[in-house]
């Protein structure tokens, strides 16, 4: 018995030792080979990382990349998408093995650039005469830190007002806060409410801009924040608006599609969703209502370069092509997202999103943004909506948490 097992057991020891030794020597030969391999062949491989999107979007991106590779035969693009994107990228940054080019969402931008993982691009742009003028200013600002550009926006969407005419009861499409309130008071929606609102500052902040605010969480104690929060929460408290979860939906797009609400405020992502999920729904798009002024949020993502990239020249070639006129045109051709360049026209029917670019402000680009937004601001907003806290207490807690 004992002898029968002795063989396999010793074999196990040998295997472990061999595995450790070979792993070590593999790493050493890899290190030795690195520069040699690059020198031998003229083709540079650039890694590109993003997150997993819808299949149609993924297919389109692969087409865009293939088009780049055709026009740049000396660069090969190695594209990879991840589900837990933030977590994966932080691990890669930390191990100093990041991809050469990567998506950065404006919500992560300030934290990542502050910790020195992104490459400033100004000198590359200057050298290759890549102009930032065609980009919408509000979007480019989302990827500027202390005056330097660390990414060019790859696409974006703002919010618009989606209206279901069948549920409006003949009321006109509201253009101002006051009209929105008075119209909502006259609408009756069976099994729902006139308006859908989410307990999420990624919507409420648009109203803060409409009230004349600056959109910075650290200014949450200002009058504009108070006005916007009171109006927004007031619609919910007075029964003119509902949370999506209260009408059996996980977000307002679903509530709108299920015809539980007549009005919702969502972005360009809603259009494809409604077409696929509720193909028979008829609705129209209108600009966000006007408060003291016009105001809207821009949700945007950049192509950025990692500071620890080993192929910066080739990475810039890819990045500037993707965010350049040719790449942008191809990527936004199916309307999944809006072009960030004024010299590329969006597909038809997107007027409500792009009508007032000067009043559209980037969402994100604040330090510790995700923490302040999801953990502090949204939890406090939920407490206010559920009647457990006052608007003023919420605002002072948010201001205290933001730095």
């Amino acid at each position, binding site marked *: 018995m004992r002898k029968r097992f002795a063989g396999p057991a010793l074999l196990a020891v040998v295997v472990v030792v061999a595995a450790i030794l070979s792993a070590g020597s593999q790493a050493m030969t890899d290190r030795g080979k690195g520069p040699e391999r690059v020198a031998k062949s003229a083709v540079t491989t650039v890694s590109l990382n993003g997150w997993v999107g819808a299949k149609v979007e993924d297919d389109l991106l692969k087409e865009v990349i293939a088009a780049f590779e055709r026009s740049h035969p000396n660069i090969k693009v190695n594209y990879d998408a991840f589900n837990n994107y933030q977590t994966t990228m932080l691990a890669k940054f930390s191990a100093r093995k990041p991809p050469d080019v990567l998506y950065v969402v404006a919500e992560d931008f300030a934290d990542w650039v502050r910790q020195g993982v992104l490459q400033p691009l100004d000198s590359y742009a200057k050298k290759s005469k890549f102009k930032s003028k065609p980009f919408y200013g509000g979007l480019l600002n989302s990827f500027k830190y202390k005056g330097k550009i660390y990414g060019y926006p790859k696409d974006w969407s703002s919010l618009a007002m989606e209206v279901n005419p069948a549920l409006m009861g003949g009321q006109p499409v509201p253009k101002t806060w006051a009209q929105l309130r008075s119209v909502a008071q006259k609408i009756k929606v069976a099994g729902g409410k006139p308006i859908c609102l989410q307990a999420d500052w990624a919507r409420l902040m648009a109203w803060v801009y409409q009230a004349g605010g600056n959109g910075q969480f650290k200014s949450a104690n200002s009058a504009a924040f108070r006005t916007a929060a009171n109006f927004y929460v007031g619609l919910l408290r007075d029964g003119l608006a509902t949370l999506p979860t209260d009408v059996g939906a996980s977000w307002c797009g679903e509530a709108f599609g299920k015809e539980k609400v007549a009005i919702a405020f969502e972005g360009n992502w809603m259009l494809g969703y409604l077409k696929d999920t509720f193909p028979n729904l008829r609705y129209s798009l209108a600009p966000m209502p006007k408060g003291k002024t016009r105001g809207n949020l821009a949700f945007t993502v950049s192509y950025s370069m990692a500071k620890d990239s080993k192929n910066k020249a080739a990475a810039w070639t890819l990045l500037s092509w993707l965010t350049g006129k040719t790449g942008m045109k191809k990527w936004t051709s199916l309307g999944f997202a809006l072009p960030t360049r004024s010299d590329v026209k969006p597909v038809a029917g997107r007027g409500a999103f792009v009508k007032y670019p000067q009043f559209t402000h980037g969402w994100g680009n604040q330090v510790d943004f995700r923490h302040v937004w999801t*953990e502090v601001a949204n939890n406090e907003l939920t407490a206010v909506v559920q009647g457990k806290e006052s608007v003023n207490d919420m605002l002072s807690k948010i201001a205290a948490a933001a730095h």
Partner: protein
Amino acid sequence: MAVAVASEKKVRALGSERLREALVGYGFIALPMAFFLVFFIFPIGYAFYISRYDWEIFKGPFIGWDNYRELYHDSVFWRHAVRNTLVYTAFVVPLQMALGLSLAVVVNQAIRFRTFFRAAFYFPSLASSAAIVSIATYILASDGLLNSFLGNLGYHHTKAWFSQENTALPSIIGLNAWTTAGTMMLFYLASLQAIPTEVYEAAAIDGAGAWRTFRKITFPLLKPGHFFVAVVSVIGALQMFDQSFIVGGTSGGPNYSTMTVVLYLFNRAFSGTARFGYAATVGLVLFVFIFAVTLIQRLLFGKAEVA
């Protein structure tokens, strides 16, 4: 002389036999031990090392015990994350144990379709927690299955259970007690079958009823089983993460009601400013706490284990 040589040979043979035995022993444990050292002991040590630095994405300056001091004064951690985790543990552990024991006693009887029931009760433990929570989100939605069922009974609940501060955590507790009960049942079933049948026969001869037999014989003789199940389920409960993550995202919402210690740890490392040093501190505090609780449980149940 010849005798001496022979015995010496025997000793040498014995010696090589023992060496062989030792080698075989080490050979057997080498692989698991290597895994244990590389994937458990080393990370714990390294986490401690990280926790003494102002470590964000990259290593920062050495700051001694500052992370620990900050955690001591961190009101969100204590008032929400720790509190929710303890409440969750206090409810889910007894529920799991009671449910697991009842199921084990039932499927230990000579009933029809016993194997089917064993498999059926164990099944939820096999499904991924993410899938179960996602399905539960529909069942517990405002117009979901549960609310319409309650409506038919004349009790009108119109809110989604996961969206309300006072029902979100209890919903997760109920859900997890159900999913993990199958595993607990399996553990209890093993210890139930370790109880010798003579004891039951003696009790039957003495005229003990079913309830009395359970209370006076089965339950006390299950003490080693109780210990094991309690330890496993407390450790699992203190590490609750995925259900909260799916219900409220990184927010731990609504209004912090599903924020747990591990979700808080995850957030400090991956949401907002990446503070790996501070997150490691949270992890170590949780480790020390779980270690202490397990030791206390061992002391409480210790004697029974020997018996």
